[in-house]
């Protein structure tokens, strides 16, 4: 269970407080698929990062499986993120000097797996996303769609129960978008919780539940 309890995020801009998130409460059941929409600057990405333990709310708490994320010390929070959460970024955020295989190996390295185990698991994941023949290529040698598939394989490396996707199709053409959404759908069917930020209604339509953020407040 992912529970957001009355969270607010207030930034200070030119000495003036700006509310990005305003007293938002939310419960997401395990295995749910939630899309989060809203105009630019409405706080969607901030809310997603707060759900992932990456951005501490000014007020309120985020509880995942009974753990209040921001009450954990930084080391435990990192370990929790490594264990439970998978991020998908709009710009993929692949490490440019590592090959596709090595990019997928990173979460496994962080988990402390041996090189042999890392290679076995990362190879299997790249096979799953159809990139076995590109595993030794660096991101610059891959197409945009292939880069996103590497990012999806990397996200799956730590076998997360919660997937947080920030505009996962934002940089992709329609064919590739459909492919990524199908992939996220399959992961959801496996029982993983998916929370996805998007501004595209067609993409949001893949979700079981659609939420909209307007001026920092949530509308279902």
């Amino acid at each position, binding site marked *: 269970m992912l529970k957001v309890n009355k969270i607010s995020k207030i930034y200070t801009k030119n000495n003036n407080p700006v509310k990005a998130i305003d007293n938002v409460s939310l419960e997401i059941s395990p295995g749910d698929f939630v899309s989060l929409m809203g105009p630019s600057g409405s706080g969607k990405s901030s809310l997603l990062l707060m759900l992932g333990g990456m951005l501490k709310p000014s007020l309120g708490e985020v509880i995942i499986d009974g753990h209040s994320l921001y009450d954990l010390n930084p*080391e435990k929070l990192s370990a929790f993120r490594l264990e439970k*959460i998978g991020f998908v970024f709009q710009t993929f955020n692949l490490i*440019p000097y*590592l090959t596709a295989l090595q990019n997928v190996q990173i979460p496994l390295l962080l*988990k402390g797996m041996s*090189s042999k185990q890392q290679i076995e698991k990362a190879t299997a994941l790249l096979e799953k996303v159809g990139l076995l023949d590109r595993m030794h290529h660096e991101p610059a040698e891959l197409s945009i769609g292939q880069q996103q598939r590497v990012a999806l394989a990397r996200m799956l490396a730590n076998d997360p129960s919660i997937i947080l996707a920030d505009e996962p199709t934002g940089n992709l053409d329609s064919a590739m978008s459909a492919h990524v959404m199908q992939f996220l759908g399959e992961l959801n069917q496996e029982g993983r919780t998916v929370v996805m930020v998007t501004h595209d209604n067609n993409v949001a339509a893949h979700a079981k539940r659609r939420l909209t953020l307007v001026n920092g407040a949530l509308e279902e």
Partner: protein
Amino acid sequence: MNWNNFIFRELFRRKAKLVTSGLAIILGIAVIVAITTITTYSEKAISKELDALGANVLILPPSVSIGDYYSADLQGGELPEEYVTLLTTSNIEGVENLSPKLSSPIHVKGNRVVMTGILPKNEFQNKTSWQGAGVFSRPKICGTKSDVFNLNQTTPKETLTRKRVIETIAPNEVLVGHDIAQKLKLQEGNEIAMLEKPFKIVAVLPRTGTIDDSRIFAHLHTVQALTNRGEVVSAIEVVGCCKQVSKGLIGKISALLPETNVITISQIVATQVKTNELMRNLSLLFLVVIILMGGASIANDMYNNVFERRKEIGTLVALGASSRTILKIILNKALVLGILGGLGGYVLGTIFALILGPFIAGISVFPVFYLFFVAVGISVCIAMIASYFPARYASKLDPCTSLRDT
């Protein structure tokens, strides 16, 4: 994959940056290694030269001035032999060898030669009271010698010309200088008459290129008796430790023996010691410069590197990397940079030294291997210290801001 692979991939991806990051530290270390290598071999060369030269301090009667170092004892004047005892039992540091001499010109087979009386080292050994104190009990502090007077070894008589001391010489034995032996056709085992007394030649000394080649050496007490001069000497040769000579050995001997004229090869010793000290001070100066410049350069590059990689750092944090992991990645990178900088600096510095040594110091220079560890140690320390704050900055980066900024 491990974190080292990760670091190496990042480092070698940006080869130009790797070179510029390491350049300041490599050059700084290279200069230190070059100076230290040349200084080390210069000191060895000085030590060798002084060792080959023999005595570097002469104690003469006050009326005598030095013209030719090796013939100073021929100008007349006398010192009491007890000055040798005074010197030997004193607490003056840096006296490595001591050789009292009494010289007198005589004629042998119609040729003028210098008969010089010397005190063999068994005479020192016989005086047991000398062995418990003074020069005999002093620690080894400099030079290449390990045994004051070589009391624990037997040495061939030919070493007189170099060590200024020999082990034994009987009252009827003599050692003959190279030139006079050739001139008079004398050989080891021959007999020779001097001042109407027969002597056996126990050794012909190797050529030295000094007036010693024209001397005949006999026991000091024999010469004293033959010349009816009593318990006196013309000069006392001292092999003084090079560093101690520069630290005031002469003043100490003068204070102990005020009625004497103490002379040293001061110009040679002082100039060479000064040059070495200058080189050493230069090394220290470069060490300071390298710490400041190399450190600043690495710190600057590391800050830039962290800033450029903030999206990557944010991604790693999103994937579950802890701030400790980020700190470790940056510091390990600094460690690699430090090792490469030390290695590069050592190789470059050694090449500089090998090429420049013969020109600067006129000596052959070879690699000094222990400097490799010094170079790497200094380089790693500078890189780690300079990178600590950028690493801390990286570990405290707000991943959200990092992901959004780029």
